[in-house]
């Protein structure tokens, strides 16, 4: 396993005071807490920050960690001495937290049940902690529904109270119509319970990937639709993409750029289903040859039109 430099993670000196550690933790937590952070790696960083703080905020745990020596470099291969890093000592921590921490943490402070850890104790029945994870899905999958394979790291406690980890694969149904920020709850798929307690639940929070031409708002979809000047001026029926497949959209005569048309019920499915809003964007054909230029000149002559009339110039 790799050595973790808890001081470096919090960005403090090895002789930092308790207050300095607390301040450093809070500052980093404000930046990386998954509920407030927009950073891509917020979840992993916050876990690491939390683990470092858990050790350094407590004098006994900090002393046990410091006893490993200061010659270690972050990421260096670390082999725990037989019997663990702080043999014979008892440490108090929240079992749910401890199970989320690294192998390096477990090697120093022991596991969750029995042994050196003092979190659960024999005969103590405790429900496993709920887990929260983010799941990234495409807009098409949100519309049609999908099945997703997920890999999760699951901590397991052996009879000696040591924490080991294995990877669990889940096949999860993503219901059609799910939208940004919604949660799927998978009962019993969180952390295992202790002493015969029930497993925790797993919450998957959905994040929808940006789409090249659709924009999502709740269950509504927005689309910019390019139209030719004569389609906008005279009215037309044009083919328009929707997540459910192309539909024929009627453009009313005299439409200007930016006009918003609604395709009722063509957004994400649900009760009620979302709508699709189509925003017209008039695109003019380029005057790239003599024929086109002549045509534009004829329009100017035969169709008096002052687009700046309202500006009084």
């Amino acid at each position, binding site marked *: 396993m790799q050595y973790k430099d808890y001081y470096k993670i919090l960005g403090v000196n090895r002789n930092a005071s308790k207050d300095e550690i607390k301040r450093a933790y809070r500052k980093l937590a404000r930046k990386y*807490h998954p509920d407030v952070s927009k950073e891509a790696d917020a979840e992993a960083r916050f876990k690491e920050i939390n683990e470092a703080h858990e050790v350094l905020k407590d004098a006994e745990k900090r002393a046990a960690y410091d006893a490993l020596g200061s010659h270690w470099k972050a990421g260096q291969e670390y082999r725990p001495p037989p019997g663990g890093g702080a043999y014979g000592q008892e440490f108090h921590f929240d079992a749910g937290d401890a199970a989320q921490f690294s192998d390096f943490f477990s090697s120093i402070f022991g596991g969750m049940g029995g042994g050196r850890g003092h979190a659960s104790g024999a005969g103590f029945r405790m429900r496993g902690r709920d887990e929260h994870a983010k799941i990234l899905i495409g807009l098409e999958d949100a519309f049609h529904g999908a099945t997703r394979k997920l890999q999760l790291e699951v901590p397991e406690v052996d009879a000696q109270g040591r924490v080991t980890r294995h990877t669990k694969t889940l096949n999860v149904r993503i219901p059609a119509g799910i939208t940004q920020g*919604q949660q799927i709850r998978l009962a019993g798929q969180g952390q295992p319970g202790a002493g015969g307690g029930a497993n925790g639940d797993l919450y998957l929070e959905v994040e929808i990937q940006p789409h090249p031409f659709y924009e999502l708002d709740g269950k509504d979809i927005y689309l910019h639709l390019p139209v030719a000047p004569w389609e906008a001026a005279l009215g037309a029926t044009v083919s328009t993409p929707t997540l459910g497949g192309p539909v024929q959209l009627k453009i009313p005569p005299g439409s200007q750029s930016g006009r918003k048309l609604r395709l009722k019920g063509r957004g994400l499915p649900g009760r009620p289903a979302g709508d699709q809003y189509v925003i017209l964007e008039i695109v003019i054909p380029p005057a790239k040859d003599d024929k086109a230029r002549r045509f534009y000149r004829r329009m100017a002559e035969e169709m008096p039109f002052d687009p700046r009339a309202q500006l009084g110039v």
Partner: protein
Amino acid sequence: MSRELDILQGVLLDETFQVGLEEVERLCGLDRATLETLVCEGLLPPRGGTPGEWRFSGPEVRRLQRALRLRRAFELDWAATALTLDLLDEIERLRREIRLLKVCGGR
């Protein structure tokens, strides 16, 4: 290793998802007194009827869980937790408005 995994069908916590007091206590690891405090602090909209008749939607469960995580990580009291959640909601609302303004070009 070729064994096909069963497909897990979770519960979608959307607006149509509704649970009572006991279930929300279990889902969020809260007791009744705390939940009543949260309603009084304005963290959740006021509820009519007796607590036994209270119903909570999926987004409200998410809001509660979020509140508890923030309270714990930053050692906040309930008033500060409620303020933080309100400000986060406001940021979300403004981001949404900016996104829509960009899409519709201000029209």
